[in-house]
């Protein structure tokens, strides 16, 4: 018997009453679909997709800030997934088609050559992502500061995952029985920032990587904890996650960023859930340099991303799913990103083996 089959049998023995486990990370969502894990689970075990796709939780006001900088003649660079997310006046991709200078980067360090190669232009990095991605932005700013680059700035819309989990775990309407925690964020943060879920909230939490074996073993771990009635934080991502996290990355982040309140699509404003540049790096802060203030909480009409991101509805329950909103013509960001819940449902539920 292979490991995934063994784990699914173990789950069938362990789970005999309704249990709802939130997989926080979009990469988990995609892996769960791609591997067909859902079809192997006992019917009592429901998997709910959480707000773990950084593209999806970026608030529309934040996208609008980036679009407005294009209008003002700046070069705006971003990771490719951000390009098709709709804002008020189009998307980075549609603006680029209209001749604005929006550029895709695959590494934050691409910005150095970009800024140095175009010294008369303002070059702005739309920096999104969780704690996995923020250290790279920190490394970029330290290097840009060392080189004395003056025409580079960053829209720091990075988000911190623990405050979002604090909000979800306290939501009485959701009743999450267990969390499958994002492996790559935990590689950086380690265990401590997530331990409150088990110790204070009593919710079993397991850090898992992204292959099907890790996901099912994480589910068994949660089921065993529910069975025993004792909640703990465990990791089944043993090869990468160290309990103390990645010290170097944490130091870099701490040197460059401080926490600030931030608005999440779907979750709304959350205290200390974002990362702003510290005073020492304020010369690189695009919000200060261009006097921007992201407008909070705007959403495309009809889009229910907020309910999808908090697991309140499945994408099928959004009236626009598959009709007005498709990957070719997305209404909301959850349909844009490859890791977005709506995008994943659209792609995989057409092939059968879809969600229930």
């Amino acid at each position, binding site marked *: *018997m*292979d*490991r995934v*089959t*063994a*784990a699914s*049998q*173990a789950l069938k*023995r*362990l789970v005999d009453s309704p249990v709802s486990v939130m997989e926080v*990370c*979009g*990469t988990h969502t995609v892996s769960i679909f791609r591997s067909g894990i859902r079809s192997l689970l006992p019917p009592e075990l429901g998997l709910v997709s959480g707000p*773990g*796709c*950084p*593209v999806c939780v970026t608030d529309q006001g934040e996208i609008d800030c980036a679009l407005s900088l294009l209008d003002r003649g700046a070069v705006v660079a971003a*990771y490719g*997934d951000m390009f098709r997310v709709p804002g008020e006046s189009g998307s980075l991709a549609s603006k680029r088609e209209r001749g604005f200078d929006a550029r895709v980067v*695959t*590494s*934050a*360090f*691409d910005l150095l050559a970009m800024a140095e190669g175009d010294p008369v232009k303002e070059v702005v990095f739309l920096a*999104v*992502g*969780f704690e*996995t*991605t923020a*250290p*790279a932005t920190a*490394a970029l700013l330290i290097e840009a500061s060392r080189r004395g680059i003056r025409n580079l700035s960053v829209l720091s819309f990075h988000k911190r995952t623990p405050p979002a989990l604090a909000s979800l775990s306290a939501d009485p309407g959701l009743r999450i029985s267990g969390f499958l925690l*994002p492996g*790559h*964020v935990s*590689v*950086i943060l380690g265990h401590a920032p997530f331990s409150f879920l088990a110790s204070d909230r009593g919710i079993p939490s397991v850090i898992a990587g992204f292959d099907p074996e890790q996901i099912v*073993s994480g589910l*068994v*771990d949660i089921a*065993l904890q529910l069975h025993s009635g004792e909640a703990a934080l*465990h*990791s*089944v991502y*043993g*090869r*990468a*996650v*160290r309990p103390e996290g*990645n010290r*170097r*990355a944490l130091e*870099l982040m701490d040197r460059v960023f401080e926490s600030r309140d931030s608005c999440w699509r779907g979750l709304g404003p959350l205290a200390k859930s974002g990362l702003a540049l510290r005073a020492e790096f304020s010369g690189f802060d695009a919000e200060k340099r261009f006097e921007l203030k992201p407008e909070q909480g705007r959403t495309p009409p009809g889009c229910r991303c907020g309910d999808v991101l908090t697991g309140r509805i499945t994408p099928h329950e959004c009236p626009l799913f598959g009709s007005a909103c498709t990957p070719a013509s997305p209404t909301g960001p959850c349909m844009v*990103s490859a*890791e977005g819940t709506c995008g994943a449902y659209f792609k995989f539920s057409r092939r059968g083996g879809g969600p229930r």
Partner: protein
Amino acid sequence: MCLAIPHVITEILDDGAAVAVAGRVRAEIRTDLIDSPTPGDTVLVHAGFAIEKLAPEESAELMNLWEEIRRLSGGEA
């Protein structure tokens, strides 16, 4: 965008850069976030940066969990 793919470091370059391969794909990556990168290290690469080295073995806790799973499933695998 949260993908992180295991790469093996093949060469250390100047200034915090390295060459790494994943299957047949060769990439230049940044090593600012890891301690003493060395050729032969397997690292997780996310958005152009190595974010952690991978240990060669699964942890003891994980092996124990799989033991438990085998026992519960009644399988012999």
